[in-house]
């Protein structure tokens, strides 16, 4: 689960970290008032979306309007805000469809001496959390990792003990920090790492981490993602969710206990098991088709879930055909066909439907399909089903 920059900063500030003074604005009048409240010579007006690249991003409705601007008056703040709020921001991270901007963060300008990068993720290799730091802040970290990997510092730390003071100092000195910045860094790095653990994060990214002229460390920008598996024990964080930033069908699927990711193609898939579902998308593409989605209906496909799965797939106007690929293990194939036929009737499926079944009771299930009187194309194996599904679109 992602949250906005302004929310991440509020949480990090509560954890003791230093963040710029900022005010949230939801109207252009509020943006003007925020500038006045900050009482500085300048302020930064920042679009709040669940994606990065906002500074270079531009709005669909206003192609010359950047996602982040520096302003020197309340009027300017209001002027930019009026274009930003309610518009769609497209950045290199949002995809072509962009994301709606409904909230702005107006922040004081900072006297930036240096910009660094600080991140915390879970490292699979060491089996625990890891602090990542770099002197190359304010840039895409992937670019840094690609061009100058030696500039990425990594410090795995203990999930129980947190980042120890000497570890924080090691990183600070290796980053070339000096003087009062070292003490600042020791405190901040440990706070960020503890925050990561306390809130069951999957990622905390501070880019840039600003070193001010006075040697203070301030969080320039913050991206925080929470581990979905842990949200059950963080109801307060669940309240921060912004459904406007999420794909509506993905939200609906999640509510029904289905795993769904929308893609760009026109061939819908309904599969049991994540690995098999990914593979079904892959084999569709291999045979010249374009998968419209990933959907894992899970181990217990009952009538309601299968029906909901079809509904969600068909809610995508791009979908011109559906491939159902079920490998029944403990789940019997005839059970799935019963659910499938019931769903077919409930929704009234009008696009070509290719079904491939394998596993327990497959013969009974295939007969049920044949006797159903429904125009369902049967795939004899995975490759055959994929080819038939692609062909059914007339492509």
């Amino acid at each position, binding site marked *: 689960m992602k949250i906005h920059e302004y929310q991440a900063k509020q949480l990090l500030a509560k954890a003791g970290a230093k963040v710029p003074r900022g005010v949230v604005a939801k109207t252009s009048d509020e943006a003007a008032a925020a500038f006045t409240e900050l009482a500085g010579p300048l302020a930064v007006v920042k679009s709040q979306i669940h994606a990065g690249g906002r500074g270079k991003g531009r709005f669909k409705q206003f192609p010359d309007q950047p996602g982040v601007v520096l302003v020197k008056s309340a009027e300017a703040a209001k002027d930019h805000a009026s274009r930003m709020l309610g518009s769609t921001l497209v950045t290199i991270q949002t995809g072509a469809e962009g994301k709606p901007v409904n909230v702005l963060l107006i922040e004081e300008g900072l006297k930036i001496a240096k910009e660094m990068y600080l991140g915390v993720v879970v490292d699979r290799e060491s089996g625990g959390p890891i602090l990542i730091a770099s002197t190359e802040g304010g840039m895409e970290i992937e670019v840094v990792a690609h061009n100058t990997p030696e500039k990425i510092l990594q410090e795995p730390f203990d999930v129980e003990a947190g980042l120890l003071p000497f570890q924080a100092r090691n990183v600070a000195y290796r980053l070339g920090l000096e003087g009062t910045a070292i003490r600042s860094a020791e405190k901040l790095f440990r706070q960020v790492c503890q925050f990561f653990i306390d809130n069951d994060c999957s990622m905390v990214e501070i880019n840039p981490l600003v070193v001010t002229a006075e040697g203070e460390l301030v969080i320039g920008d913050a991206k925080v993602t929470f581990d979905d598996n842990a949200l059950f024990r963080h109801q307060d964080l669940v309240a921060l969710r912004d459904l406007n930033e999420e794909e509506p069908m993905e939200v609906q699927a999640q509510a029904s206990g289905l795993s769904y990711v929308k893609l760009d193609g026109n061939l819908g898939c309904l599969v049991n098991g*994540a690995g098999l579902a990914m593979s079904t998308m892959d084999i569709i593409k291999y045979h010249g088709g374009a998968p419209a989605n990933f959907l894992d209906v899970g181990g217990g496909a009952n009538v309601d879930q299968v029906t909901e799965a079809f509904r969600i797939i068909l809610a995508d106007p791009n979908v011109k055909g559906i491939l159902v690929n079920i490998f029944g293990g403990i789940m019997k194939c005839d059970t799935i066909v019963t659910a499938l036929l019931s769903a077919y009737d409930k929704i009234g499926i009008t696009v070509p439907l290719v079904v491939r079944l394998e596993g327990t009771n497959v013969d009974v299930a295939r007969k049920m399909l044949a006797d159903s009187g429904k125009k369902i194309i049967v795939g004899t194996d995975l490759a055959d089903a994929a080819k038939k599904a692609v062909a059914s679109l007339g492509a």
Partner: protein
Amino acid sequence: MSILVDKHTKIICQGITGKSGLFHSQQCRAYAKEHRPGEDVFVGGCTPGKGGTEIDGFPVFNTVEQAIQQTGANCSLIFVPPPFAADAILEAADAGIGLIVCITEGIPVLDMARVHRAMQGSKSRLIGPNCPGIITPGVAKIGIMPGYIHKIGNVGLISKSGTLTYEAAWQMGNIGLGQSTAVGIGGDPIIGTMYIELLQMFEADPKTEAILMIGEIGGNAEIQAAQYIKDHVKKPVAAFIAGATAPPGKRMGHAGAIISGGAGTAAEKKAALEAVGVVVADTPADMGAAVKRAMDLRK
């Protein structure tokens, strides 16, 4: 002879009184009855508070420690819900049980980080979580896989997936290949046992003649495995990597199946494996054929 699971394996189920726990315990017991009639393979289960009772002929214990003492169990199959599963794993490890197989999907990642830390130097081996389990065909089934899919044979199978593994086993069965042991390592970012340890075991196992690795996007375990294969594995290896069409940054079902910062793509894993001589199937329909091709290349 197979790896990890053999005729000495005695299984208990943590969470046996839950719906899934009971159902799959019954299925595993039935598998043992069919293949090794008269032998006691699935010997009971644990649910705190239900010790001293019985469920469908399975004795139930309060703790893993008690279960081991009473039944001689050396393997625990865990069907405990996500908020309590890490604790269940740690209890089993603390009781010193040799093999722990955790089926549970949805365990918080940092809980698994805690488990990983606590199990450093442990004599228990953890498989999973978020996995279908392990099967040594004809000997014992410890998990949710349909037993009949896995024919007895000599291919070692290591997979992050569940149903995709069944697909592979079925394809292999169609061309007369079976498994020595099939291990589901699970789809989570932090897991108990990774490819390399199992590759080592299969390489040393006299019953295993070839190995099939099924991977997916996310992390670099397959790339590390490729390096290991280059240095240490002489037996023929085939592979398939799911997720060539997965978009970056999206979690594709499995918690660990996410392309992050451009890393963990199917293409790079495929390339790394091919570079060390692994036969990588181009599509999921060719996994069985890839194994055969890998074996034929060595003849």
